[in-house]
């Protein structure tokens, strides 16, 4: 009683009852929906409920009792069995999940790195780990299908007598290694006859081909999913403050790191504010200066990349003149082969460091552009180096040496090894020395940051070498595994000893996407085309390797198909080969179809983009409506100020206090509903007093419309706060108020407007309709909790409809003012309908 000093007891009872009913109803609905789901979906749905553990447990037990009650009615052995089965499957799934987690490599180290350096640095280590896994997979494939059969057939390498292990081989990969299964030359072209025949040629070809295809698919998938997650959705406005605010790294646990991060964040926020304030107020001369610097640095970097390529080409030619095709090299000769990989790795180490010097005098509008420029320059450099090397191998080495595939394999081996040494040197010079310099000698330089972009590009380059080498040296992934494994620890130590957390919190997720895309696009595709070119166009060496004596590697398949023709029952393979693989028409059609599909998808994307713009506009309109109506309401309010207001406000605040944790979210809406109600009551009183400042029908209908709107708003907000834990109570309060409003309205009409006898009917039917609409909207909402966008739109639609209906009811006495409003609503609803159709 004391809580609601101003309402009569009947009202109060009604309110509490409704609240309780509504709460129970909502819970029952939820439970019913959950029961209808399959066991797996139900578990997921319950898990996804944003409630506290206890509430989830309560819901779950309700669902289970409901279910068992239902089941005891129709108990069968089968149902019991299937229930047991699904339970044990689920247990099994949990076990697999936890086992996978136990096997997860480097969990503690990852946590430590994330705890001190944040997610962006962590992404480098995640990438490194991913590459390591990739290499383990490729090693297993190659070792299993190529090396093991070769070793089983011929366990001891047939090494010429005058070749012995001298130690330098570990660096050069030449000499002794040349005769082992390390390289292409170590494999035979025979069919291994054992328990079953194993055609080495076919095995070699198909393993490499399959491996490349699998790599491509894996890359495309991870690239696409990461694009979908991180890039497409991301906003283009990069300096937005929100991004800074929501990207607080909860991973960070180190006290110092937290302090540093706070500082960095503050600096960044201030910068973004001042940037915004300044805007693009550069003078023409400044612009020209910036442009000139950009042009100069791009020119310089491109020139440097081309120059490095040319230099390496001449170095290779020089090397070619000094090496002979003999089986045994002198130590000096062998050591000479190290010159090219040394120079290449030196360039790879030095030039990127030089590029990063550009940063000091180049000014980019955003940090992202700066990183992109750096990445593009480095990619150009690496591509020109690799391009030149591949050209040399394909055109020069292939002509000169008798067993040229092994020679290329050796060259790649040396590059991989030297790359490793220089990566170590890189962390020494780039991080350790820089740290010493920054701390002791030149404090203005400061402690270095871990340059994620440069380090990731180094990894990508290393991986590309392994991909190119897969054909020439099938066991190269083994070296790669070792390399990445050591590198992980090395980088971790170097990071924790020498570096400080990055000063700017970049967009780690987006950078990661770009790195995977880079790994796929020039690098993997390049490696794939080089391997494919080798297999299709180059003549394999005649003295060694599995493909000796063939015109090109691919003719292995042709020979195999010829052989198959004689075997009955395999005609379909031959047919497929002749009519699908070898026919231009097939590829022509495939290409056409793909182009058409791409075009269609492109159009769909365009349509969606427009839709997004329109929907956004609609939300803005909605908001404007809301504020407009609110303003109107407040104006009316002000013009009829009454002492009663105090009481009502008190009540509103009382209510919201009562449900403070989640219910307060609705206080806004509630207050509005209350205001509407109060206005009606005010008018009622005025009516009784006799002074009628406004024509009663106008005030009435607009009051009804506004009450409805207020209710709608309450519901909208309710929907927003759906996840709030005690939404039952809050929503029911909103409902109750709207009902109260409607009831007062009804009373009001009874008092004041005897002429319109159908009015009470109208009102009550409006209430029932609104309630129905609400029910439906709620059902929808609960139906697709995991499919939010669609449900939201349909709920919106229903709300609109309900609103429209509510407004149409008092249309007979509707005045000009509210009819304009109704028309606006109608127009909007029409637009809404069109969108929904468009979907």
């Amino acid at each position, binding site marked *: 009683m004391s809580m609601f000093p101003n309402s009569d007891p009947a009202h109060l009872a009604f309110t509490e009852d409704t609240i309780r009913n509504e709460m129970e109803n909502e819970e029952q609905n939820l439970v019913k929906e959950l029961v209808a789901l399959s066991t797996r979906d139900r578990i997921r749905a319950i898990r996804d409920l944003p409630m506290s*553990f206890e509430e989830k447990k309560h819901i779950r037990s309700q669902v289970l009792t409901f279910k068992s009650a239902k089941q005891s009615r129709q108990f069968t052995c089968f149902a019991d069995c299937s229930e047991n089965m699904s339970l044990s499957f689920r247990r099994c799934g*949990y076990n697999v999940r*936890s086992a996978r987690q136990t096997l997860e490599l480097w969990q503690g180290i990852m946590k430590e790195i994330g705890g001190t350096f944040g997610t962006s640095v962590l992404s480098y280590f995640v990438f490194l780990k991913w590459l390591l896994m990739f290499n383990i997979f490729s090693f297993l494939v190659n070792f299993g299908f190529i090396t093991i059969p070769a070793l089983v057939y011929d366990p001891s390498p047939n090494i010429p007598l005058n070749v012995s292990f001298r130690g330098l081989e570990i660096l050069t990969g030449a000499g002794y290694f040349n005769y082992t299964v390390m390289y292409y030359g170590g494999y035979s072209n025979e069919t291994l006859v054992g328990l079953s025949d194993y055609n080495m040629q076919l095995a070699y070809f198909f393993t490499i081909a399959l491996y490349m295809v699998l790599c491509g698919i894996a890359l495309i998938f991870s690239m696409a999913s990461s694009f979908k997650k991180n890039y497409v959705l991301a906003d283009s406005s990069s300096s937005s*403050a929100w991004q800074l605010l929501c990207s607080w790294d909860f991973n960070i*646990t180190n006290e110092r790191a937290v302090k540093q991060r706070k500082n960095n964040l503050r600096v960044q*926020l201030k910068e973004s*504010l001042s940037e915004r304030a300044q805007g693009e107020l550069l003078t023409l001369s400044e612009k020209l200066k910036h442009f000139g610097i950009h042009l100069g640095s791009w020119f310089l970097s491109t020139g440097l990349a081309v120059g490095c390529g040319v230099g390496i080409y001449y170095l290779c030619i020089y090397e070619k003149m000094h090496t002979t095709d003999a089986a045994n090299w002198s130590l000096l000769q062998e050591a000479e082969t190290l010159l090219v990989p040394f120079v290449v790795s030196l360039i790879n180490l030095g030039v990127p460091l030089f590029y990063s010097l550009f940063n000091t005098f180049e000014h980019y509008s955003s940090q992202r552009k700066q990183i992109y420029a750096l990445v593009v320059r480095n990619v150009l450099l690496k591509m020109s180096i690799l391009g030149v090397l591949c050209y040399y191998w394909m055109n020069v080495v292939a002509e000169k040496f008798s067993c040229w595939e092994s020679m290329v394999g050796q060259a790649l081996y040396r590059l991989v090894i030297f790359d490793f040494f220089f990566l170590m040197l890189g962390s020494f010079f780039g991080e350790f020395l820089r740290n010493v310099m920054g701390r002791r000698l030149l404090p203005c330089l400061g402690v270095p940051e871990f340059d994620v972009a440069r380090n990731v590009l180094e990894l990508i380059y290393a991986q590309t070498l392994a991909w190119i080498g897969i054909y020439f040296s099938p066991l190269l992934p083994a070296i790669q595994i070792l390399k990445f494994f050591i590198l992980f620890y090395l980088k971790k130590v170097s990071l924790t000893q020498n570096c400080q957390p990055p000063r700017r*919190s970049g*967009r780690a997720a987006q950078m990661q996407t770009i790195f995977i895309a880079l790994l796929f696009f020039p690098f993997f595709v390049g490696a794939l085309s080089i391997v494919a070119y080798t297999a299709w166009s180059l003549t394999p060496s005649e003295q060694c390797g599995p493909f000796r004596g063939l015109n090109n590697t691919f003719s292995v398949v042709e020979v195999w198909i010829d052989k198959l023709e004689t075997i009955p029952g395999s005609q379909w393979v031959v047919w497929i080969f002749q009519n699908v693989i070898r026919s231009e028409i097939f590829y022509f059609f495939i290409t056409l179809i793909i182009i058409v599909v791409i075009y269609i998808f492109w159009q769909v994307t365009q349509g969606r983009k427009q839709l997004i713009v329109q929907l956004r506009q609609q939300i803005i309109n909605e908001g404007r409506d809301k504020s407009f109506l609110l303003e109107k309401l407040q104006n009316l309010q002000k013009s009829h100020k009454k002492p009663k207001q105090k009481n009502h406000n008190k009540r509103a605040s009382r209510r919201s206090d009562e449900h403070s944790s989640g219910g307060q979210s609705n206080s806004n809406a509630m207050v509005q509903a209350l205001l509407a109600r109060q206005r009606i009551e005010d008018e009622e009183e005025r009516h009784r007093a006799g002074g009628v400042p406004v024509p009663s029908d106008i005030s009435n209908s607009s009051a009804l419309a506004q009450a409805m709107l207020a209710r709608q708003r309450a519901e909208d907000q309710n929907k927003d706060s759906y996840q709030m834990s005690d939404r039952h109570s809050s929503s029911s309060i909103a409902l109750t108020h709207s009902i109260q409003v409607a009831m007062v309205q009804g009373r009001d009409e009874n008092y004041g407007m005897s002429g319109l006898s159908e009015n009470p009917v109208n009102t009550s039917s409006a209430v029932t309709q609104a309630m129905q609409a609400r029910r439906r909207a709620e059902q929808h909402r609960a139906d697709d909790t995991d499919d939010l966008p669609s449900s939201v739109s349909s709920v919106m639609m229903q709300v609109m409809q309900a609103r429209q209906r509510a407004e149409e009811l008092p249309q007979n006495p509707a005045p000009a003012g509210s009819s304009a409003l109704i028309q606006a609503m109608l127009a909007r609803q029409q637009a809404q309908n069109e969108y929904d159709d468009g979907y």
Partner: protein
Amino acid sequence: MGTTASHLPKDLLSEYQELTFLTKQEILLAHKRFTELLTKDEKDHQNTRVPMDRILTLPELKSNPFRKRICHVFSTSEHKDGSLTFEDFLDLLSAFSDSATLEIKSHYAFRIFDFDDDGTLDGGDLEKLVNCLTGETDDTRLTPEEMRQLISNILEESDIDKDGTVNLSEFQHVISRSPDFVSSFKIVL
């Protein structure tokens, strides 16, 4: 601490697994860490509440600027003192775990950032949020002018319906556009 595992009955464990995003190891580890926070005589009781200041001695939460808010949001205590039971603690870890959905994460992030618990992020909430992130002391805080500018920028970006506050769906919209959120809204024991 091999004995702690036996404190957790098997059916309870599987229930925890079913209702949270955590794996068995994570639950057991959480249990171990939680029991370490209990005093001698509290260990015998079921469902004891650990007060907030003792929860905040965990290194994972100790230096987090939102530590108090996190405790308040996940606490089911009736006194609103931020104390956590083991189940509240699991809830916390589940929301911050790797496999929690974006939906859950953004919902709890919203509640953490909603300092006055009124269901919307208004100017006051945003100001507190920024202060939390940049540091509370006078020399680290942004000037009032900067703060005003920043908040108006934020509202301009995210307040789609222009009502002066950021509600949950608007917040989720912002979150869906910052892909780093999922990887950074994470606490692992």
